[in-house]
């Protein structure tokens, strides 16, 4: 009788964490200026324990620029992949993800509106932007899904992707309009449509971490229910899953996580599509493995994509969305092609 647990063993998590830390160190050391690993450790160590800093170490680059940036990138990468994995299970659609469904653009539109019309919470500038992003992300998700459902109640891949693309164009056009009129108050449209982690700080990192702790945990706790959804929503209902509750919690969590990421980095596309797909090929479709593995791989992937964007044409920086979209669209075509062929 097989008593093999469906999830990973603890040792696998240690390996994941080790791989993530290694990449993190690499990404802090490499860049427009390369810093030796030893100096990086010294800088972090001495800062944490409030020790005097040696003169020759570029302290501010490590502690004020790279470390917060890499943390933000890793957290956002993990969050976006987790969301992609959850959505692909919930909608039983391997091409679903915040970006392809138009949720990211919805969130970005919300954020842009908040900044342009000065909607903010006193004392915490980011909160108003994030709240609006969340609201718009959730509304766009509900809007897209309900329209798709009306057109085609099986929520088939084609219809849902088409709606997502159209919605993205729509949101982007309004966003461009607002950006043109709002002038200097808003970061360039490039930031919102292509994404960037330049200017990340510790507050951003803490916010994403907190969101991941709350909403990421909610999603992870529903692994089993997502398995049932991935087999079929009717089947999920028949085996006793509270379909409506799970759907609502997962959709809210996904919208919230995506919005928080979009608020700090703009829309970084295709991470949530590529990573869960690759993980599924390696670890299988069971969400007890798929979701945690996506979380870690997403962090690693986005850190490397950001590193590539920073270093490939240095000192010029390529927007991170360019890197991920380049890789992502190729994978997208591959998934689409192979899923068509399988039918």
């Amino acid at each position, binding site marked *: 009788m097989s008593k093999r647990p469906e999830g990973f063993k603890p040792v696998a998590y240690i390996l994941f964490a080790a791989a993530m830390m290694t990449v993190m160190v690499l990404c802090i050391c490499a860049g427009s200026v390369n810093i030796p690993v030893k100096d990086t450790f010294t800088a972090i160590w001495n800062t944490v324990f409030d020790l005097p800093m040696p003169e020759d170490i570029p302290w501010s680059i490590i502690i004020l620029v790279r470390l917060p940036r890499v943390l933000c990138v890793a957290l956002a990468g993990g969050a976006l992949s987790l969301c992609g994995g959850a959505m692909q299970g919930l909608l039983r659609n391997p091409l679903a993800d915040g970006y392809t469904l138009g949720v990211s653009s919805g969130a970005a539109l919300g954020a842009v509106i908040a900044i342009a019309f000065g909607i903010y919470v006193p004392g915490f500038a980011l909160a108003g932007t994030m709240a609006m992003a969340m609201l718009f992300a959730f509304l766009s998700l509900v809007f897209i899904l309900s329209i798709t459902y009306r057109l085609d109640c099986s929520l088939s891949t084609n219809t849902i992707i088409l709606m997502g693309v159209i919605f993205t164009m729509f949101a982007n056009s309004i966003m461009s309009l607002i950006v043109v009129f709002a002038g200097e108050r808003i970061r360039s449209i490039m930031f919102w449509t292509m994404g960037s982690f330049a200017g990340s700080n510790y507050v951003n990192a803490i916010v994403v971490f907190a969101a991941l702790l709350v909403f990421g945990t909610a999603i992870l706790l529903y692994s089993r229910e997502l*398995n049932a959804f991935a087999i079929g929503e009717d089947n999920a209902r028949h085996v*006793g899953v509270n379909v409506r509750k799970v759907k609502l919690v997962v959709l809210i969590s996904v919208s919230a996580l995506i919005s928080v990421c979009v608020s700090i980095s703009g829309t970084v596309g295709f991470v949530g599509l590529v990573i869960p797909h690759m993980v599924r090929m390696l670890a299988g479709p069971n969400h007890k493995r798929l979701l945690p593995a996506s979380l870690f791989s997403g962090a690693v992937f986005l850190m490397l994509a950001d590193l590539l964007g920073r270093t490939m044409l240095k000192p010029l920086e390529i927007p991170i969305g360019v890197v991920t979209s380049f890789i992502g669209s190729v994978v997208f075509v591959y998934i689409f092609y192979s899923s068509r062929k399988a039918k």
Partner: protein
Amino acid sequence: MLEVKNLTVSFGSHTVVNNVSFSLGEKQWLMIVGPNGAGKSTIVNAISQGVPYRGSVYFSGKDLAGLKPSELARKVGVLSQRRFVSYSFTVEEVVRLGRYAYSSSIFSGRSDDDEAKIEEALEVTGMKPFRGKSVLTLSGGELQRTFLAQVFAQDPRLLILDEPMNHLDLVYQKQMLELIRRWVGENGRAVISVMHDLNHAWAYGTDALLLDKGRVVAWGKTADVLTNENLQSVYSMDVYDWMRSLLSRWSR
């Protein structure tokens, strides 16, 4: 066991099921028959709480509408015809989900009872050799048997089958029907199935419910329901005559 009273289902202004009442005792297999659009699937959908309805559905004295999803799943299991899988779950993972309704919380591990039920379900459906295989590689019949194993593992009191024989070849049809007949032979179990094939309904059903345009034409023991008179009024043709002429080919 099952008590359905004045069941009415409407989609907008269109009434699909109109004031249907029937009941079902243990060890009984009710065949719901009737032409396309008679409301057969809608009735079983309503019983499994998949569509809103008026009227009442009681099971062992409990109103099914008031149950939590997991409580409902312990009483009523469903095997439907439409099967389409997107991801390469293994047969065992699919069957294991049948035990979902019995896990009280996410932290509770697997009970020995769960394991035993899963093994038994894989065994009787003959899916044990396939347990580690991806469901994407299965044939239609194997896939249907996987979901049959899932619903067996779910161990419901009432099993609902919505045209379970569709797209299955003869061998699988026979296997499936025999398996379900054996399943319903135990105490405290009953089956309702939507059937197109009147021969299957005759051979395996203990009871039958004949429907036309959402209304009950006849309900009772199979032999009393599937009379030529009843069938003729529903199908507007001499069903007995046609069935006989089909079967006469085999007696040569």
